[in-house]
């Protein structure tokens, strides 16, 4: 039997949703019939609107997805102005205030506390600068990720930005691909450092070379079926296909159509293409693609560049992220700035937009490590840029604990999350920076905190993987984290093993400190990387190296933050929620 979601999608989906959003916006939140809430909130996702969690009814998260994370001059500033005008909540966040933008691990931007009544004006303003929220959520082509410094990087092999943009233009608002069985995440990598993170995507294009008709052609190898969610992580599998840049869009369309027709529409928990790949295997997948979905002979895979992949790889030479000052092929520089947990307050975001305009081309690019990159900074302007006050906090040379931190949205807004994440990871990073000395030679140390198994912070591919849990401490349930080790991408990607489970959240910084101390004592030499060290040990040995303990780290979020309407509100009880609210913020009384 088709699920409710499939029935709603059959009735109305895709671009038809826009007129309905505008109608509801005109008439107000209360115009959405009570018995149609589930259906409409599911459909709104297609336009990048996600209803916030319980206690925050009538407020939405809005996601804006620029392909490859490239925000052209003027686009970043418009998003900041929209956040300033519309993304304000009824209570303050103690770290970030009220009004910010979130850079996500899929190179998108998320705004919170958005009112439905304001959405048409926001859409118009986004469209006026060439941006859109189309298919940012929902069962379709999500934001296409890729090398954020495409066209600007000396490690580039093939132009990922051109293909990401072509895929975006082809498959956004494309009726034949609007309604897929589930979300569809696509990555395009063009460099030899692997910064597109193709291994964890449904569909990955990776740089490769191939002899075609006696000539060496640069293009892409194709992998399918990666993803991290639901305790079922998979790396994308090699389907033995090489696509020339000219063929890539047709190959992508064929694979998307294959998923559309063969993905499981009866069980959403079995719907992602990784499960179809489990069932079919890459050989049958390729055969079906060739026979039914493309009308040309597919090339066998070419020679890839995976040997040199360093992004998020833990031990390889080369860049692990895009932070820092890097020379472009044209002699200008790109400057990667660290954004701790991806969140930028509105006032600082204006300063960053000014700095990008004054010292670079005005482009602001978003990375999968929740950071931003300014491009086209002339050599003579680099020092001026670095002296800007705003770069003290958004630094091109941050401490490794700040640089390595990633966190998802967490219980602040997310329905699925089990624990508070962003404020907690900020506190972790600061405590670690102030209290823990990294062992000699460790310049990159990635700690990813995800609130649940959906894995939006990509926890399984970090040096230290943290995943939301609960435990009982002194007889009371408290927020806790599972701790995993050994994850990373690179030539031989590996998911973390979950070594210590249900560690009270206030003991995690002590656990990381002890782990690093034990690593420093026990490693073979000062050149042995943390990932190598972990790779040489079994789970039992590693468990002995994690010694959770309370320290002077203070965690104000040990209670059940999900049971609040907003974890940081002075009176946070669900019954005190000011939601749902009218457009002006006035609470709408309940019928009870």
């Amino acid at each position, binding site marked *: 039997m088709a699920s409710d979601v499939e029935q709603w999608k059959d009735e109305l989906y895709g671009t038809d949703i826009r007129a309905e959003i505008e109608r509801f916006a005109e008439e107000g939140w209360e115009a959405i019939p009570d018995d149609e809430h589930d259906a409409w909130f599911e459909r709104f996702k297609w336009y990048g609107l996600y209803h916030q969690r319980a206690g925050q009814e009538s407020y939405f998260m809005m996601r804006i997805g620029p392909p490859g994370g490239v925000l052209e001059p003027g686009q970043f500033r418009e998003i900041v102005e929209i956040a300033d005008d519309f993304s304000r909540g009824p209570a303050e966040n103690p770290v970030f205030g009220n009004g910010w933008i979130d850079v996500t691990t899929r190179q998108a931007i998320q705004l919170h506390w958005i009112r439905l009544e304001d959405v048409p004006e926001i859409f118009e303003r986004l469209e006026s600068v060439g941006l859109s929220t189309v298919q940012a959520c929902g069962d379709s082509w999500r934001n296409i990720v890729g090398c954020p410094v495409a066209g600007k990087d000396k490690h580039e092999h093939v132009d990922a930005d051109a293909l990401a943009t072509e895929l975006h233009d082809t498959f956004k608002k494309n009726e034949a691909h609007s309604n897929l069985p589930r979300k569809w995440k696509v990555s395009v990598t063009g460099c030899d450092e692997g910064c597109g993170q193709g291994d964890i995507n449904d569909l990955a294009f990776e740089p490769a070379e191939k002899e075609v008709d006696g000539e060496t052609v640069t293009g892409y190898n194709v992998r399918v079926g990666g993803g991290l969610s*639901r305790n079922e992580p998979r790396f994308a599998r090699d389907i033995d296909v090489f696509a020339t840049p000219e063929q890539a869009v047709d190959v992508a369309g064929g694979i998307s159509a294959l998923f559309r027709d063969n993905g499981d529409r009866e069980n959403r928990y079995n719907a992602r293409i990784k499960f179809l790949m489990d069932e079919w295997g890459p050989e049958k997948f390729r055969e079906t693609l060739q026979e039914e979905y493309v009308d040309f002979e597919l090339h066998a895979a070419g020679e890839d560049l995976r040997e040199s992949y360093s992004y998020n790889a833990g031990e390889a030479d080369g860049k692990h992220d895009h932070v820092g000052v890097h020379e472009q092929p044209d002699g200008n520089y790109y400057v990667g700035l660290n954004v701790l947990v991806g969140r930028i307050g509105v006032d600082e975001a204006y300063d960053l937009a000014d700095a990008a305009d004054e010292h670079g081309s005005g482009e602001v690019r978003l990375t999968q490590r929740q950071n931003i990159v300014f491009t086209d900074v002339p050599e003579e302007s680099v020092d001026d840029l670095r002296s800007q006050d705003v770069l003290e906090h958004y630094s091109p040379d941050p401490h490794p604990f700040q640089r390595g931190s990633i966190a998802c949205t967490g219980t602040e807004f997310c*329905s699925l999350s089990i624990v508070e994440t962003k404020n907690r990871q900020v506190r972790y990073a600061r405590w670690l920076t102030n209290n823990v000395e990294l062992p000699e030679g460790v310049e990159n140390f990635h700690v990813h905190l995800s609130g649940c198994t959906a894995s939006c912070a990509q926890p399984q591919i970090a040096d230290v993987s943290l995943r939301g*849990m*609960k435990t*009982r401490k002194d007889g009371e349930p408290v927020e806790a984290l599972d701790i995993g080790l050994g994850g990373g991408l690179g030539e031989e990607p590996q998911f973390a093993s979950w070594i210590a489970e249900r560690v009270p959240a206030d003991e995690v910084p002590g656990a990381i400190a002890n782990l690093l101390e034990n690593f420093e004592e026990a490693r073979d030499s000062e050149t042995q990387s943390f990932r190598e060290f972990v790779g040489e040990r079994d789970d039992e040995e590693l468990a002995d190296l994690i010694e959770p303990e309370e320290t002077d780290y203070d965690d104000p979020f040990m209670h059940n933050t999900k049971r609040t309407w907003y974890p940081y509100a002075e009176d946070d009880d669900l019954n005190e929620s000011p939601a749902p609210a009218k457009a002006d913020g006035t609470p709408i009384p309940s019928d009870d």
Partner: protein
Amino acid sequence: MTIAVRTLDDGAWISVNDSRQVSVSDVWTLSHGTFCGCEPAYVLLEGFFGVDVSGSIVVADTVGRCLDCGTQDSIDRLPVGRIVDGEFKPYGPEGVQSIVEPTSRTRRE
């Protein structure tokens, strides 16, 4: 009266009549033997993957983990509340729950 029950948002919620009623991430107290050897078992619910109405009882299929012994498993037909005069009355996660026997296979997403 027809009761519409479904899971929402990747299994984050049980929705009853288009209202988000039961959330993941709460710790439920389960009686001995229904989940693991702990008595009682304090089980964190991590996701819902099915929901049904059994008589007047709303039952959920879910995945959970015991906070004491670490057992992770699925739970079929956990009672999460009941329908009284057409209204959903949730059971608190703190109350000791046992699993009801299946009486219907008309499981909804």
